[in-house]
């Protein structure tokens, strides 16, 4: 007589982790495509390096911990690698990319027990570690191939493989170039610098030749995957349509930033950037649709997700406006990740038949 207990239900909808991860990877393809268009072989090299090293690290970790290496097939490590690559500047040297991937998998994920147990978004924690360890590299933005702005012309032909390979494996020194020669400021960084000099926002944007259309399409400086609002929105809507994520986090996150920016911009347009600028700038859309919605490190309850999104929005805008770093989206998500267990506890939905949320 068989003795293993199987509880109902004896039917299953057929969803799997692998498919969920694959959906997110698919949703990131438009952004990855734009990054290749803008940064040529640099983007390809970066994405391949990050994904490969993430997979290899994950495989080694699983082997050392005596867990089935077949877990690799759940696509989560590949996704982490892709996430990390898309948040890196195009000029990131190979060893930093590898280091970042190792950090993401080891510190961000496996030390906590592997998939499903990490507290912080692995890719973002690696990104922040890199930012704090190598601030220069992580804030140097190569001029993209299609920056339709001002006098900025790409200093390098990024569609040429050998140039890119040299830069990727040897750094700018191998091309007898300094960082300054091939890079430009990101809109956020530029505004921040000018703001400290007391230049009004509108003037700074003019001086930068800022164009909302370019920002929407992605023809501007920034991390390889974060520039194109269009591509990211397509991916985000795909995720929403496939029910991989719910609207709560992205919507509340972005709306919070827009509302705060709008309010302060109305109060003092010289000091505070307009909401649309915040919307397109930096990693907001990438973080809102892909990073903050990472299911493992975000709250599970709808109310919790709303709180999480609002928190992310407030912190992102505050850091961008007042903080020392030009971009706060990554920090915002990481900071809110810390609060997830408490949010989960305090923002549970009201259970059927109960007057209000049960006493905690």
């Amino acid at each position: 007589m068989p003795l293993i207990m199987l509880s109902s239900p004896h039917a299953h909808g057929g969803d799997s982790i692998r498919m969920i991860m694959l959906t997110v990877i698919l949703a990131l393809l438009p952004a990855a495509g734009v990054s290749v268009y803008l940064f040529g072989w640099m983007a390809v090299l970066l994405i391949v390096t990050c994904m490969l090293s993430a997979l290899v690290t994950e495989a080694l970790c699983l082997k050392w911990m005596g867990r089935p290496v077949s877990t690799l097939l759940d696509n989560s490590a590949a996704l982490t690698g892709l996430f990390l690559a898309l948040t890196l500047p195009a000029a990131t040297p190979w060893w930093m990319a590898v280091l970042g991937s190792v950090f993401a998998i080891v510190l961000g994920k496996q030390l906590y027990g592997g998939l499903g147990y990490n507290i912080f978004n692995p890719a973002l924690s690696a990104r922040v570690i890199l930012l704090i360890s190598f601030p220069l590299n992580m804030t140097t933005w190569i001029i993209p191939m299609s920056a339709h702005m001002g006098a900025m012309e790409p200093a390098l032909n990024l569609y040429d493989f050998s140039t890119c390979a040299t830069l990727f494996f040897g750094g700018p020194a191998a091309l007898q170039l300094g960082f300054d020669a091939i890079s430009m400021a990101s809109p956020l960084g530029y505004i921040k610098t000018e703001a400290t000099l007391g230049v009004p926002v509108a003037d700074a944007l003019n001086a930068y030749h800022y164009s909302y259309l370019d920002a929407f399409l992605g023809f501007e400086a920034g991390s390889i995957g974060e520039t194109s609002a269009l591509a990211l929105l397509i991916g985000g809507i795909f995720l929403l349509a496939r029910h991989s994520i719910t609207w709560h986090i992205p919507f509340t996150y972005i709306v919070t930033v827009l509302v705060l920016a709008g309010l302060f911009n109305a109060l003092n347009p010289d000091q505070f950037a307009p909401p649309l600028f915040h919307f397109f700038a930096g990693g907001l859309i990438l973080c809102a649709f892909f990073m903050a919605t990472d299911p493992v490190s975000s709250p599970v309850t709808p109310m919790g997700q709303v709180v999480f999104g609002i928190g992310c929005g407030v912190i992102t805008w505050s850091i961008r406006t007042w903080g020392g770093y030009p971009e706060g989206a990554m920090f915002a998500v990481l900071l809110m990740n810390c609060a997830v267990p408490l949010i989960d506890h305090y923002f549970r939905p009201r259970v059927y038949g109960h007057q209000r949320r049960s006493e905690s």
Partner: protein
Amino acid sequence: MTEIALILLSSVLVNNFVLTKFLGICPFLGTSSKVETAVGMSFAVMFVMTVASTVSWLVQQYVLIPLELEYLQTIFFILIIAALVQFIEMMIHKTSPVLYQGLGIFLPLITTNCAVLGVAILNVQQEQTFLTSALYGFGAAVGFALVLILFAGLRERIEVAPVPTLFKGSPLALITAGMMSLAFMGFSGLVKF
């Protein structure tokens, strides 16, 4: 008004005692295994820190400086803190024996919580006024409480995860604290203080 807000913001987030000044790590790790305990500890520390920073400011201004006894600063401050801790210990023992039991040795050890002495001495060094030193003490305590409770929430979650044996307990807690500290670095420069 703005100044008050800035002092609080600065001491709670930007210059968080635990995550950016690395003070009070011992109770931060010792009493964060459960959220309930962490909340209790937070209130105890908040009481001790706020009162200690005000009383020590008074003592500094009206006893030590007039009598030119600044060199006795540490002894006096420790005396104040020790007395306060004794007081709160009795209070908790009376009101919540379970919390008393849960905090265990860490309750009397608030005395040696360097964050408490730290805030008192920093107040003196930064030549704060009475009001600002009270605020600073309170803000620092709130910052301590905030990260302690957040951290306790995280640890409760880590507790049930299949963490590699090598990293179970304190190692992973320290790594997590490090990650929190990294995240809190995002606030740097938020308030120039």
